[in-house]
């Protein structure tokens, strides 16, 4: 089993490198010439060549990529085209903000979503189920930036309960987290519900009932443990979607995170910053996914069994 874990941990940076390559390729397609952007109105060809060489842009793409990776390993993400500052200085302090936002939101979604989902499954077709279902469906159709704007309009501007922008106090986080959580919550409730329903329909539930188990035990002991399995993997997906949506929410609430930075950088074609931000976001995601996959492995005895030798081999009946 340790072998498997080690294998996965080694695979992780490989995936990250390939993902970074993909992003690098995409960004390189851009027709905007960053060199031109950085030169004054009138320039000579020599100045152009000199700057191009300085930035390393005169070399083929793969060479640039390898160099960038090499530097990135040492923590050097290059220099921002816009501010001429070290990229790390620009984005380093932003990482905790984005990470905390996404993680806190995902945890909230999973906890509340699971509880509500189980509730719906157990009381299928009752009024609780119907109300929650309707709400979930509607929430899934609402873009989170719209929720952000409406919340800001109502709670921040009109009612002045929460601050509009920036960070500082816990209050500053309330609106962004709720905005980010709501659509994700809708999805999670529905998935939990259908996962629980699937489990409740299984034959082993009938066996449990025939033993004389109380209904609450049947649901919360027999069914739930089985339903949890796919949900753990879903948490990973949920986190990915949250990271993506966080970019927009950060922008609306002006939170100093990676999201706001990457959007500005795209507008300014500040390639090093774009690369660094997107790669860091990917890295966060990949690490979380690894933890989720390993957690799954420990929880599901069938998966554990593949890696731990059973005491005896199968014997014929």
């Amino acid at each position: 089993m340790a072998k498997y874990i080690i294998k996965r941990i080694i695979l992780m940076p490989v995936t990250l490198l390939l993902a970074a390559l993909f992003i690098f390729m995409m960004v390189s397609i851009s027709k905007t010439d960053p060199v031109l952007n950085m030169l004054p109105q009138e320039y000579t060809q020599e100045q152009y060549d000199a700057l191009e060489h300085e930035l390393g842009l005169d070399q083929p793409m793969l060479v640039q990529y390898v160099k960038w990776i090499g530097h990135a390993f040492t923590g050097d993400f290059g220099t921002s085209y816009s501010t001429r500052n070290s990229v790390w200085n620009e984005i380093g302090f932003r990482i905790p903000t984005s990470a905390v936002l996404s993680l806190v939101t995902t945890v909230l979604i999973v906890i509340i979503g699971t509880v509500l989902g189980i509730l719906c499954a157990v009381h299928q077709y009752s009024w609780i189920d119907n109300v929650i279902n309707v709400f979930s469906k509607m929430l899934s159709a609402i873009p989170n930036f719209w929720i952000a704007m409406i919340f800001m309009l109502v709670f921040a501007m009109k009612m002045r309960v929460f601050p509009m922008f920036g960070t500082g106090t816990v209050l500053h986080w309330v609106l962004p987290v709720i905005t980010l959580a709501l659509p994700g919550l809708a999805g999670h409730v529905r998935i939990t519900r259908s996962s629980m329903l699937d489990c409740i329909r299984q034959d082993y539930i009938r066996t449990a009932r025939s033993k004389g188990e109380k209904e609450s035990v049947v649901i919360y002991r027999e069914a739930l443990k089985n339903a949890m399995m796919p949900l753990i993997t879903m948490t990973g997906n949920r986190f990915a979607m949250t990271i993506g949506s966080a970019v927009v929410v950060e922008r609306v609430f002006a939170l100093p995170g990676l999201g706001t930075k990457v959007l500005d950088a795209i507008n300014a074609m500040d390639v090093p910053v774009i690369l660094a931000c997107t790669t860091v976001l990917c890295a966060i995601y990949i690490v979380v996914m690894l933890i989720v996959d390993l957690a799954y492995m420990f929880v599901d005895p069938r998966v554990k069994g593949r890696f731990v030798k059973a005491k005896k081999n199968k014997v014929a009946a």
Partner: protein
Amino acid sequence: MGEKLLEIKDLSVRYTTDGVIAHAVNHVNLELDKGEILGIVGETGAGKTTTALGILNLLPRYTAQTDGEILFNGVNVLRASEKEMQKIRGEHISMIFQDPMTSLNPVYTVGDQIGRVVKIHNKEKGKEFVEQRVDEILNLVGIPAERKVEYPFNFSGGMKQRIMIAIALACNPELLIADEPTTALDVTIQAQVISMMRSLQRELGTAVILITHDLGLVANFCDKVAVMYSGEIIESGAIEQIFDSTNPHHPYVVGLFGSIPKITRKTKRLTPIEGLMPNPASLPEGCKFHPRCPYCMDICKTEEPEAVIVNDHLIKCHRCVRKEEA
């Protein structure tokens, strides 16, 4: 005579889904003494499993409606409260299901699952008692007790079914319902499981209802038989009566025996019973078997036959009545 362990009186079960009503079980009457073995024979969809689930009151709450009574030791289980039923299930009546592959919870150990049924019905006793009982019952079904820490996926189909039997017998129930316990298993494993069930039954004195479509199994194992068709019992009686070809029999039962391949005789083709069992949502008028019956008379199409009982041998057939009269 022994007091009746189980009495099913005029049981009818209807399933309602999307406005369509399916009459799964129609006016079934059955009796069982302590320690008796009853076989219920019938095709898929005849209502056997529904009857069995009815005895445990495990029919789906929202879609099934029941009429009639099922008396277990005098208590009507159809109208008993859920709390009362939970006391009965597992301890007084238990059930083995058809598919052992899916009937065990994949995420708990085998010992845990057997232990649950012991724990539920012996709340005052401690952990040691439970563990001891689990070991005992595993040995009884021929599985080494050390394997109780393993998960269901470590076991083959036959062993899983034995684990199910262990769960069912762990609390020494008075009645065991076995719903096609060997259908999902290989023939060789079938024989082993059945012989084990037989020796356990002799040892513990459990009454058994064996649901199957295998007449050979019934002949080997049961004291009496009931044949179900379209939710009704069309013939029932002691083994000797049913398997005696000189007795009158329901045409369906004649057909069942006739469709068994005989290795001692040369035959070009098998003789199946023509047609299919009717859809429970649209049952025919009169005798439910009449569309397939080679001896169908006019009265069969309009009037339901009365059950005629001669020496505890019951037949529901107009033709057999005529024969008796004649």
